[in-house]
């Protein structure tokens, strides 16, 4: 194991990008307003590795697919997840399907970095957390780091993976700091991280809900409720074994997921438990999610909507005492 230092989540992402660009000349960056990066540590890669694009998300996402088909490994910065709808066809119909459609002739090693901006009064058109849409769209891998180490490691793996990977970066965590290994530190896909072991309730948490879940678990420990906190880290592929194994031991499941409720990631994990761990379940499954409303602008309205430490703790208590 190499040395670790404290980095922020945002710094870890840049470190991963710079390492991968240094390691592999076929890695390029595409995104709006990224020309500014050439002033910083990216300068060494020269202008042919950084494509600062017009406001044409559909065009340059499709372009990334074409580049990936022909020998490059583009990293596309899609800034704000609520802009993904503009680029849905190249993501879902092209990137996700081309390998299958061509009978395996194609590979599409592209990474789509999608910022999750929510909780900052960005309002309805800039605050979505649409990863469930891509979980329902076969052919795309979906990663969501919740720590600086995972932000670096999942991005490194994403770049090296031969399939299209959508990596959702929770901007609420941008300034969170944590230990990150120096040098190569890829995090395998399909392996959940057990942040905290526990025996009473399995608490699966995603993105910034991990932070809230860990804080809730601290509170609950003081009340005598032992909570196992698990972050799947990749939603496609999903580490069913770790999740279901935990539920089989604890008999209780709470899922904290900042996506909207209906057909969200929490729905999938709850359904899995009801199918595959039914005999072990000793209480109803509980979802702590964002309700199905367009995100309001006013902080007075918005701040109440996402899974919070309090809301998660309440759900765990309900389930634990059931």
């Amino acid at each position, binding site marked *: 194991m190499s040395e670790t230092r404290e980095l922020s989540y945002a710094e870890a992402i840049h470190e991963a990008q710079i390492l991968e660009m240094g390691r592999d000349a076929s890695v390029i960056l595409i995104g*709006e*307003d990224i*020309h*500014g990066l050439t*002033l910083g540590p990216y300068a060494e890669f020269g202008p042919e590795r950084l494509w*600062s*694009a*017009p*406001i*044409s998300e*559909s*065009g340059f996402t499709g372009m990334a697919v074409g580049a990936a088909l022909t020998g490059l490994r583009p990293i596309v910065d899609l800034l704000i997840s*609520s*802009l993904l*709808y*503009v680029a849905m066809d190249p993501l879902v119909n092209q990137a996700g399907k081309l390998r299958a459609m061509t009978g395996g002739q194609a590979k599409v090693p592209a990474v789509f970095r999608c910022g999750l901006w929510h909780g*900052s*009064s*960005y*309002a*309805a*058109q*800039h605050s979505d957390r649409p990863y469930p849409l891509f979980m329902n769209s076969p052919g795309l891998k979906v990663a969501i780091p919740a720590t600086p180490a995972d932000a670096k490691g999942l991005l490194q793996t994403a770049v090296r993976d031969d399939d299209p990977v959508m990596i959702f970066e929770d901007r609420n965590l941008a300034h969170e700091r944590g230990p990150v290994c120096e040098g190569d530190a890829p995090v395998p896909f399909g392996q959940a991280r057990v942040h905290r072991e526990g025996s009473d309730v399995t608490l699966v948490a995603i993105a910034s809900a991990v932070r809230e879940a860990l804080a809730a678990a601290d509170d609950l420990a003081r009340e005598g409720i032992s909570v196992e906190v698990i972050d799947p880290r990749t939603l496609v592929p999903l580490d069913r074994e770790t999740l279901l194994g935990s539920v089989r031991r604890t008999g209780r499941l709470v899922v904290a997921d900042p996506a909207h*409720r209906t057909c969200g990631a929490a729905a999938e994990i709850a359904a899995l438990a009801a199918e595959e761990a039914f005999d072990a379940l000793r209480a109803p499954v509980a979802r702590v999610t964002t*309700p*199905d*409303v*367009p995100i*309001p*602008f*006013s*902080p*007075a*309205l*918005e701040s*109440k*909507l996402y899974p919070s430490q309090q809301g998660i703790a309440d759900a765990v208590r309900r389930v634990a005492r059931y």
Partner: protein
Amino acid sequence: MPTPRPELLIEMQRRMWRVRAFDERAVELRHAREIHGPVHPSIGQEAACVGACMALREDDTLTGNHRSHGHPIAKGSELGPLMAELLGKATGVCGGMGGSMHLADFSVGSLGETGIVGAGIPIAVGAGLSARVRGTDQICIAFFGDGASNHGTFHESLNLAAIWKLPVLFFCENNGYAATTSLARATSVEDVAERAAGYRMPGVVVDGQDAVAVYEVTAEAAARARAGEGPSLLEAKTYRYLEHAEGEGIPGFYRDAAEIERWRQRDPLEIHRQLLLDRNLLDAAGADRIEREARAEVDAALAFARESAEPEPRAAFDVVFANSGGSGT
């Protein structure tokens, strides 16, 4: 060219001052964190907003973009509910649901801004189509930036409006940049208006710092659209003095101070003030009074906004659907 009447020339200056004073205050409030979320000021672009909107009829409609405080103000909105919206209050024009990027004021025909670049353009086409089907002679104007002209919606919308000769004006406020990206870096043409040829519609470049010039080309295109002769692409050359979004820490490396200074020398409020003085429509005191009054209106709007209550939590749930049932849980 349809030239504006004297009262209108004075009213233009008033509305430009409203836009300027409103946005100056909004920027202050953003820096003071009394406004949350991004604020994209129109300061420097007032002549484009006001010249265009005042060439329209009251029942004409508009769609905006992320940089659209100025459009409803130019169209005649009351400032109180707009400012209350920026503060996220229950009395906001959108009840606190929209905020700076999503102002909408249906009472003046402002159908809403969109935070998604380019997305308002087809909506304007729909409003034009609707006027046609409903048999009114309203028109709709879509405001968008130079950056938006590289978006697929721009192309699809211009084609749709062209083939059906819909009463729509496509109004590009070309301020030379999309965030930190210059027009030259992102756009295959120098004048966005060149692209009109691909749709066989008029493409007109106008000095966006000159409210009267903007008024004139807009009024002409509006008359054309209203007469069933089809859409136009208008391009106002303008500039934003401030950052793309204030208070977000966006670096300023992409343009130099001299460029900003050059544009400040062609300030739309100064240019129009001079016109009013030259034509003896106002004296200096009168011109100053307009500014003072606008600032006072903004102060009153802010007082109103500050006094207003926060929205009730239930509000977010109540506005999802018009026909009840199925809202969030």
